[in-house]
């Protein structure tokens, strides 16, 4: 009851239970700030940003610096040092070919993050194009495109990815295509609903009545307005792209072996675990999980900050 009284909008609601249409322009941030829940998430959000951002920055820095400072080639094979446990010379130990796992793990992390970033950007561009076209055109093209989205969504992502990679195997391009072609649907849905809500806003009406052509409205008014949404989608897709690439590489279907990503290292380390060489899997796995959590933490912070009402719409 106390919350009801404290809620400034409570009195404006009609008595019969039908809510007045929600105002569109971000009322949620202010409404949430007053509730205890809002404060709690605020504190947690900052902690998330600090922890996630710090960890991510450290990992990214290490991924760039370690292979460079180490001065050694992460691919350098040393058959005299096969499956050595962690030691001062090899802090993460060595793998079944005697390669130093410290260098290899960080080089792999760099590959994983790079590929994931490219995939996230490509699928955002693809999804934004489809979503914007769908929202702007309306009518049967809209229905058709949304049916395509539904159909792609009904195939499990990893399976569709495996089919694409299997048929065009052994190239980085195939991996990127496999991830981009399976992850654009969420972005398409979000951008479409954003365009639909933008279409009725006064500034669009104003532009049209001011004599702006269709192309100009699209270029100057609609597209800039969906950029924040699309950028957020890219960041939210990053952890998924990392996950997907790692899973494909782990199964031996992902990046070619010379481009060692964390997934490749883990896949090759599978047999070594059975021989008791736990470090071959443990250190890269810890790096992978840390990177995934850091990226997810930053992404969640950004999402809550920019779109408090849209918490779960991506379904991510």
């Amino acid at each position: 009851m106390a919350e009801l009284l404290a809620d400034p909008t409570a009195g404006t609601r009609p008595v019969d239970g039908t809510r007045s249409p929600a105002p569109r322009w971000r009322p949620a941030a202010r409404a949430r700030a007053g509730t205890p829940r809002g404060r709690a998430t605020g504190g947690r959000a900052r902690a998330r940003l600090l922890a996630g951002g710090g960890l991510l920055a450290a990992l990214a820095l290490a991924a760039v610096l370690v292979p460079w400072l180490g001065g050694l080639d992460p691919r350098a094979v040393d058959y005299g040092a096969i499956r050595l446990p962690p030691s001062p010379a090899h802090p993460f130990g060595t793998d079944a070919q005697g390669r130093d796992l410290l260098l290899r793990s960080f080089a792999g992390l760099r590959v994983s993050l790079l590929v994931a970033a490219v995939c996230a950007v490509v699928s955002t561009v693809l999804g934004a194009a489809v979503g914007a076209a769908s929202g702007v055109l309306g009518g049967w093209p809209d229905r058709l495109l949304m049916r395509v989205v539904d159909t792609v969504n009904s195939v499990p992502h990893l399976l569709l990815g495996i089919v694409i990679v299997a048929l065009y195997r052994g190239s980085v391009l195939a991996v990127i295509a496999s991830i981009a072609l399976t992850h654009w649907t969420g972005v398409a849905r979000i951008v479409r609903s954003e365009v639909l809500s933008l279409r009725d806003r006064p500034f669009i009406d104003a532009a049209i009545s001011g004599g702006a052509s269709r192309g100009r409205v699209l270029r100057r008014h609609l597209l800039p307005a969906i950029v924040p949404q699309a950028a957020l989608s890219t960041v939210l897709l990053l952890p998924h792209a990392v996950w997907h690439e790692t899973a494909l590489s782990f199964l031996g279907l992902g990046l070619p072996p010379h481009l060692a990503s964390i997934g490749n290292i883990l896949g090759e380390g599978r047999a070594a675990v059975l021989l008791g060489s736990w470090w071959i899997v443990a250190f890269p796995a810890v790096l992978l999980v840390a990177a995934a959590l850091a990226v997810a933490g930053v992404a969640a912070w950004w999402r809550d900050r920019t779109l408090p009402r849209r918490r779960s719409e991506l379904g991510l």
Partner: protein
Amino acid sequence: MSVAVVGSRCRELALLVARRLAFAVPVLVIVAVGVFLLAAASPFDPIYQYYGVDVFTATAEDLAATRARLGLDDGVLTQLGRWLAGIASGDLGTSRSLRQPVAQVIAERLPWTLLLVTVALVVAIVLSLVAGVVAAWCQGGLFDRMVTAIGHAMEGIPPFVLALVAIAIFALGLGWFPVAGLTDAGAPASAEQVLRHLALPALVLGVSQTPWLVLHVRGSLLAALGEDHVAGARARGLTEATVVLRHALPTALLPFVTLLGTRVPELVTGAVLVETVFSWPGIAEAVVTAALAVDFPLLAALSVLATAAVLLGSLAADVAVALADPRVRADG
């Protein structure tokens, strides 16, 4: 509820099922055709698959004759038509990597996957319900904070990492469970053998699905605890256990059922990874075998099968929710 209302409800549900099945057929056909076209556009020549290493020693006439016999020189549409006609008449083709008809592969392997996935799903549901309810009940307490933190952390751990850790600890370290496979080498598939080998993969698959479910149960139970009918139950002086378990939990479980239905794709994905790590002879492991060998007939059949599972999962969840909740309209 009167008989007439029940009868109209049944008709509504039957209509819902019929409509969704009617929607599923074109989706399955599109997926099948899509996979076929992807394969047709692939630079990979099926003749290499058919011959294996022998392709380098075979004569050009041999190759040409085989291509003609397999119909590889026909147009894409002709091949597509032939393939679809085969499926319509019940012939799914022959898997080249497993050297069996595709239908036989599915018949032999599907039961093992269903067993694994069912046990994993039960593990995940029990774990998430218990942990989620207790966490929401003592919101802000130590257990709640632990469950939330572990749940968020586990979301970042891929199933195959979990599987490797489980093998290292429980199979190699403690020796409680066998490392992999369906039975010990050469042993017949007796119930005792299978159960012992099933335990670890099913636990890993179940636990890997749990984080989302736990956090969801916790969140929706917390939301339900704030609803008016729960406040009413409290005001009537009912015991805390009755309020939470009989009044709040049922409302919170409805979205949980929907969530379970939409998580079939993740379950399939998890099964692919877990079955591969544990060499479990299920259908999901065959996906990887088929992909590594570019075994197109098997890959296409399995994609269609997985899509059917996804559609069935969401349909089953919707029907269950409509059955459990009279407020849900089944004709929407």
